[in-house]
Each structure stands twice: as structure tokens, then as C-alpha cells.
């Protein structure tokens, strides 16, 4: 019979103001929802493992899940770091003796989960988007950068499954005082110190994972316009104006970001962190608006998890017109975005 452990962690103290380092991350609560569903389906016992400075406080949010609560506490766990996180998770897994370990695919756990699986003689799959099966566990995940979807199972145990964020609703039970079994951890002497988080140094923070809308800027923004000139400054103003008015997150095609390294005139706020697609991120937003992009396969990959998609393009034969977007407007993006900004940012 299977037994399930859901590994969770708190946010880094400066990650979000609301979390303050004492609250479990949303991705952790999503993994817990997945664990509760799976435990109910398999009739398996469920445990929750918490990595936090103060696991007892953090556990209040999940006490109503009705699961065994295990935790590691200490200042060392306030910083995401391979050596200490791996030791903490290894100790929690050994204490829980679970056959299935679910965890959020956060940067923190993605850094260490494979190492822990190896230490426990187990196996791991990441970027899991769904868990199915009644007697066995069938995990769905994408291969070839979201271009091929597979369902797989494994015989080996423990089996670690890292879940992509946004694939399950976050657990939302009433907070209540909880009794946590604190697990002792043999910590190695850390050789790595985390000094904090750094935002891109290009001014505006343009990546907003919680935004409803993803705005994608393609290479066309820096190409010559009908007057034979480039208008990069105007493009930058239009894009930033739209981000201000709409609250959208900014994604970019690889070609536009790569111009930074090719000494071409570039949009100053773009970095590789904005890049989506084959060699970038595959973000999850409800809506997406693409401008000056082309419908090549690498771009489509970046849009895989966008539910409602619209695009503005001068080319009616663009790949977007072939079943990738819901609506394609054949128009000059400079003109449309200027009008759109007037509607979204009405003057005094």
C-alpha cells in the first residue's frame, strides 16, 4: 500500500511582503491539494513535511488537512540552499517513510529534490501536471519543451513527483493551532551563504507571475517600420505604458532578447528572464496578447499554458493564423498599442 508525503516550505522572507518567511508558499498549498486528492483516491495515509524557520507556526495553515505533520525548524532553513534543504527533506522523508513524495516544483525544491531521491534510493519526475489512476499512479508531464505529452508510471519507490504550479487549486483550510512532530536534522557545515534576492537592474519589474495577462513582445518591435526607420524608444514607451495600464506580465521572444548581446538597439528593460518559448519560460496566465511575433514552433511552446490567446500581426499568413491563437488582428502593433494605452491609461 502506498503512503504519501507532501513536502512544503515557507517563502524566503523577502519573497513576498505578505509571507514574511512564516507562511507556506502557494505552490506548497497546491501540492497539498494534490496530495489530499491522491490519498483519498488510493486510500493511502497522508503526511505533510514542513521546512521552515518555525515549522510549528507555518503548520497552522494546514492543520485542518487531517494529515500527520512533520517539520524541521531552524534559522538554517530560512535560506534556500542545497546542502541544508537536502538534509532537511531527507530527514523528513526518512521520518515519514512514504512511498510517494509530492512537492511543489518551486525553485527551492527543484534545486534539491533529485538529490534527495537519490539519497533515498528512489526515483523522481518533475514538471508533473496531473496525477491519475485508481490502483496505480499515472503522472502526466511534457517532453521536448511542452511539445510532446506523456503519461508515465514507475515501479520504484520512493517516487518523488514535483508538481508544476497552477495545476491544482491551493489548499484553503481554516488555520488552527497544530501539533508538529519536529524531526532532528544532521546539518552539514554550509559552504554557501544566501545573501538575498536581486531584481533585474533594468528599472521596471516586468515579470508578474500572478498577472491575468501575459504580454509578449516579438522581434518586430525593433525592426524598421513603414517609414524605413526603427522606433525603439517609442516601442519601449508603448510596452511599458501597456504594462502599467493593464498590470500584465512581460514575455519576449528569444530573438528580441538576444539583440542585447548583438549590440543592436534594444528594449532596455528586457532580460533573458523575460524570454518565453523553447529556450525560455512557459508561464501560466489566463490570457495572452502577442505582438510582432511569428508563429514558429518555439514561440508556440511559450504559449502552451495560456488559455485565451490573441495576437496583433501585420502578416495574415503568420503561424498564429493557423490554429494557435483565438483571434489574430492584422494591424500595425504600434498604432493599436498607442490606442489601447489611451483607453487603459486615461489622462486627467
Amino acid at each position, binding site marked *: 500500500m502506498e503512503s504519501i508525503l507532501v513536502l512544503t516550505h515557507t517563502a*524566503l522572507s523577502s*519573497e513576498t511582503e505578505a509571507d514574511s518567511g512564516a507562511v507556506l508558499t502557494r505552490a506548497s498549498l497546491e501540492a497539498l491539494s494534490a496530495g489530499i486528492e491522491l490519498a483519498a483516491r488510493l486510500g493511502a495515509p497522508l503526511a505533510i513535511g514542513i521546512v521552515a524557520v518555525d515549522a510549528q507556526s507555518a503548520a497552522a495553515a494546514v492543520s485542518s488537512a487531517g494529515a500527520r505533520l512533520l517539520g524541521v525548524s531552524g534559522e538554517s532553513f530560512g535560506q534556500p*540552499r*542545497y546542502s541544508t534543504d537536502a538534509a532537511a527533506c531527507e530527514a523528513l522523508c526518512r521520518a515519514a517513510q512514504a512511498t510517494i513524495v509530492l512537492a511543489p516544483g518551486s*525553485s527551492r525544491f*527543484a*534545486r534539491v529534490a*533529485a*538529490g534527495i*531521491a*537519490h539519497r533515498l534510493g528512489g*526515483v523522481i519526475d*518533475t*514538471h508533473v501536471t496531473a496525477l491519475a489512476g485508481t490502483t496505480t499512479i499515472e503522472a502526466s508531464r511534457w*517532453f*521536448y*519543451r*511542452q*511539445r*510532446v*505529452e506523456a503519461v*508515465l508510471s*514507475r515501479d*520504484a519507490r520512493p517516487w518523488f513527483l514535483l508538481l508544476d504550479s497552477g495545476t491544482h487549486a491551493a489548499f484553503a483550510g481554516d488555520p488552527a493551532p497544530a501539533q508538529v512532530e519536529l524531526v532532528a536534522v544532521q546539518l552539514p557545515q554550509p*559552504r*554557501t*551563504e*544566501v*545573501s*538575498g*534576492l*536581486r*531584481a533585474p537592474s533594468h528599472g521596471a519589474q516586468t*515579470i*508578474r507571475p500572478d498577472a491575468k*495577462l501575459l504580454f509578449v513582445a516579438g522581434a518586430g518591435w525593433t525592426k524598421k517600420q513603414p517609414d524605413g526607420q526603427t522606433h525603439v524608444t517609442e516601442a519601449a514607451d508603448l510596452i511599458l505604458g501597456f504594462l502599467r495600464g493593464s498590470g500584465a506580465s512581460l514575455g519576449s521572444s528569444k530573438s528580441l532578447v538576444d539583440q542585447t*548581446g548583438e549590440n543592436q538597439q534594444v528594449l532596455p528593460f528586457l532580460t533573458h*528572464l*523575460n524570454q518565453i518559448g523553447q*529556450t*525560455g519560460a512557459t508561464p501560466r496566465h489566463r*490570457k495572452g*496578447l502577442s505582438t510582432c511575433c511569428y508563429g514558429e*514552433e*518555439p514561440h508556440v511552446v511559450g504559449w502552451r499554458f495560456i488559455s*485565451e490567446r*490573441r495576437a*496583433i500581426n501585420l502578416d495574415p499568413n503568420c503561424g498564429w493564423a493557423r*490554429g*494557435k*491563437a*483565438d*483571434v*489574430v*488582428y*492584422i*494591424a500595425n502593433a504600434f498604432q*493599436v498599442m498607442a490606442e489601447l494605452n*489611451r483607453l*487603459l491609461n486615461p489622462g486627467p
Partner: protein
Amino acid sequence: MATALHIVVCAGIVPDPLQTLEPAGGPGAPALKNEMALPAVLDPWAASALYEAAALVAKNPGSKLWLVSLGPKAKLQQVMMTVAQKVAFELVPIDGLIGGFPDAHSTAAVLAETIAALPGLDRERLLLFGGWESATRGAGITLQLVGERLGITDQFQGVDQIELRDDGSFEVLERVEGGKHQVSVCAGTPAVLGWATGNLAEPRNNPQIGMANMRAIMPALQKATPASLEANGLHYISVALPKQQRTTRVVKDLTPHEIAAELAAWIGAE
């Protein structure tokens, strides 16, 4: 004072991103249709790792760079004809399966065994590089597993920058949620760094570097050790392309103002 580094880059080969992919072989032994015929490139994020590694080697005299790559010999040779012109390295080829479907744990075991046996490698000076995820399996676990097998417990993933200091320590920027970087300082080698894009542009082709590299690459390819990858109890139940063909409305006859009004309403709608 410069630090002499031993940098090992693990990099696979992947189908050119512009190619259309189609699964074949069924769930028992999934593969891509015409996989061996598809043009291949060095895995993009691993290629970033290779260029960053070469830049570090250039800045730190006495350093050495190995490129460990697992794939069919013929495909490796094809890809190396291009990669070898970019930066100088010693190729350590392993003749094995191509693609994203073989088990990552088996791949990691083969890579770790190969790296551990590299002649002249000083593991105390080792920086193990690779892409943080491949463009095939995309799991982000292989490099981590290799690191664990080699006993390296300072690991960083989604790396965009490393800055070596005079005392041998280094600062690393890793991608985390929200478009930010986590900043860490590691006391020194050995360490594992899974690279994202980094900050370097792709080096221009240099035929002289290519000629020098290929003199060693061809004999290495001929002597490439064959590796078999065990399934480790991994079963594929289905492998398929996503069915997401949309009915697209192509709007050609609206003014920019009308389009903007329609978009504003769409953006504002719940």
C-alpha cells in the same frame, strides 16, 4: 589571483527547435519519428553552460574544460562540426541513446561514472556545468543526480551568472520565482551549476579553434564508450502530441482604434 579550474560540461544533443516533432514507437519504447534524421543541435541551455565555462577558462590560466556528451556517435559528430568552432574543449563522447524518453537516473549514472574516471581531473577543483533543464526530457534532474553521485553538495540551478573572487569563492545568481535572482556566495569548488541562458552571446565560429578541436574530437568519437540505459521500472502509458488546434478568427478590416477597443474589453472581462 586566478583560480585554476577543472570544468566539466554535460551537454546532450537535441532536435533543432524549428523541427516538427512526432512521437513514434508506441508507449512501450517511445521515440520521435525519424529521430536520427532530424537535424540536431547542442542542447541550448547546456550550450550556454559551455560558453560560460570557456569564458571562465580563458580568465583563469591553468584551467581545463571537458565536454561530456551522451548520444549516438554519428549525431555527436554532426553536432560537433559546428560546436567545435565556438570554443576550445576536450570532448568526452559516450555512445548511447538520443532523446528525452530514456530514464534520467540511468543517464546520470553513466555520466557520473565517466566523469569520475576522467584522467587528470582534480575533483577538488571541479565545477560541474550543464543546462538546468534539457530541451528533450526537460526535467532538470540529471545534473543534480550526477552531482550527488560525485558527492557534491553545493548545487545551483537556473544560473545566469558566476563571479569568481580572488580567494576562490564565487557569487552565483540563480533564477527564482517572480523574475528575480537568488544571490549566493559559495566558499569554492567543487560545485554544480545548472545554467539558464547566462549573459554571454553565442561565440562566432572560429575555423582555427574548429581545426584544433576536431583533431582530438575525431579519435575520441572513434573510441567512444557504448552505454546502455536501463529503464529502472519506468513505463510510458501514452505519448502524444497535444490536441490544441484552435479555430482562429482572423480580423483584417478593423481600424487600430476599433481593435484597441475590442482588446480593452477583452482584457477587462472577467
